[in-house]
């Protein structure tokens, strides 16, 4: 179910990423002021955009989960936020490198996008500790969804607040695609597409892995029951922050589970 189309998606991700890198290094012109350093823009900005979109998507999936009570939406929400956190780390690292290169400091407080991204990242960093601290899987999913919706709404609000608070010290030449030269804009858009595809592919892999693990667990339990083993199989639920969708909901025999 989840594995469908995974191969095609992976291949197109690799192709677009390769194309993006080729464009970055051989097609896009050198920027007049920053020179070669500016090329990190084609990685950093798409990473940030995709991570933020992933956070918001996590919130939207969480709304779906709260409305339908289908644990699969919770899993989608978890995976989107989990992956966005990883992309967020990459964004902060590439941003720091760029800041060091162009302004001479690893961190600058007067760049509102940077600061608001850090605040959003710090908020989402509590998502997994929150899940981890709740034992009951159903309540864990529900509370995590409430968090994801709140935080998803916080993302744009926080950007407005922080942006308004900062006087623009640095010229925002690289802020919008509209005032980029067309060659740079094309390269940027291809990079954005590549990173977005990478995000989708990784999310799909994680979802497939989780789904397969749940199926395997269900089949094992079934096999144990068929074999009539006297050994009581303890429900070995890993104490993990990751959502473990109840296995029976995921087997081929019972693809849909009515509300909990």
């Amino acid at each position, binding site marked *: 179910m989840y594995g469908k189309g995974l191969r095609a998606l992976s291949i197109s991700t690799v192709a677009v990423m390769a194309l993006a890198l080729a464009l970055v290094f051989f097609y896009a012109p050198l920027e007049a002021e920053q020179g070669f350093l500016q090329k990190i823009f084609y990685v950093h900005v798409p990473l940030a955009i995709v991570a933020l979109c992933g956070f918001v998507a996590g919130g939207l999936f969480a709304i779906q989960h*709260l409305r339908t009570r289908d644990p699969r939406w919770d899993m989608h929400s978890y995976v989107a936020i989990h992956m966005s956190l990883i992309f967020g780390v990459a964004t902060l690292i590439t941003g720091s490198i760029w800041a060091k290169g162009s302004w001479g400091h690893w961190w600058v407080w007067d760049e509102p996008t940077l600061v608001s991204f850090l605040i959003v990242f710090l908020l989402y960093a509590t998502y997994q500790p*929150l899940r981890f601290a*709740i034992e009951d899987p159903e309540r864990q999913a*529900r*509370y995590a969804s*409430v968090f994801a919706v*709140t935080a998803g709404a916080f993302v744009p609000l926080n950007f*407005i*607040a922080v942006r308004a608070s900062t006087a623009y010290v640095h010229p925002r030449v690289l802020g919008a695609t509209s005032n980029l030269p067309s060659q740079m804009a094309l390269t940027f858009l291809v990079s954005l597409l590549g990173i977005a595809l990478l995000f989708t592919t990784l999310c799909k892999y994680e979802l497939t892995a989780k789904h397969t693990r749940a199926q395997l667990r269900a089949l094992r339990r079934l096999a144990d029951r068929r074999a009539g083993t006297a050994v009581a199989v303890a429900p070995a639920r890993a104490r993990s922050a990751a959502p473990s969708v109840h296995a029976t909901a995921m087997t081929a025999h019972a693809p849909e589970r009515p509300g909990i």
Partner: protein
Amino acid sequence: MRRTVGALLRKELLVELRTLESVPGMSLFAVTTFVVFHFALQRSSVDGDLAAGILWVTLLFAAILGINRLFVADADQGGFDGFLLAPVERTALLVAKALALLAYLVALEIVAVPAFALLLLGPSLGQAMPQLLGVLALGDLGIAAIGTLVAALAVRTRARDLLGPLLALPLLVPIVIGGARATSPLLTLGHAGDPPTRWLLTLGLYDLVFGLIAYALFDFLLED
């Protein structure tokens, strides 16, 4: 709904009056923090940006003490179960708790603001007082809405004392930004002017949005 909120709020305030669990602790914490700031900054008086920052950081951390305790009694002593058994709207609990937290914050500020003026603040507060109260009220509304939601989210987890502040602080950053920016002209020597409308609007908008979010999501936290 109004009667339920009234009854719940009365119960909250009565419990607080009898146990004195939150407000005295918050107030004492705020005053102690001012003393700590005096020694940490090695200054006998502050004004402007620095004063606004100290005031808001202190109020924020004191508020977090209250937020952490807001639902503890309900979670530990069966208050949630009792409430869920009653045939009333669940949102009433959110409204009552938020109002109770708002009352705690006002009580905290009645102690903390004069203490701040006395201990640390350089310029006198007299003239700027009404405007300062307005800014504080806007900040309190946001802290009450976010604080209640976060407290309900954190209270039934294993690490509630840790998670509450961790969840609340990033969500309250925009309030600190808006509050500190709006307050700093009021605390400048010779009064630099009125608080900028932009910041008051930001605070008001943030309060409104998070009030609605808390209203929409609170029911889901009370299902078992």
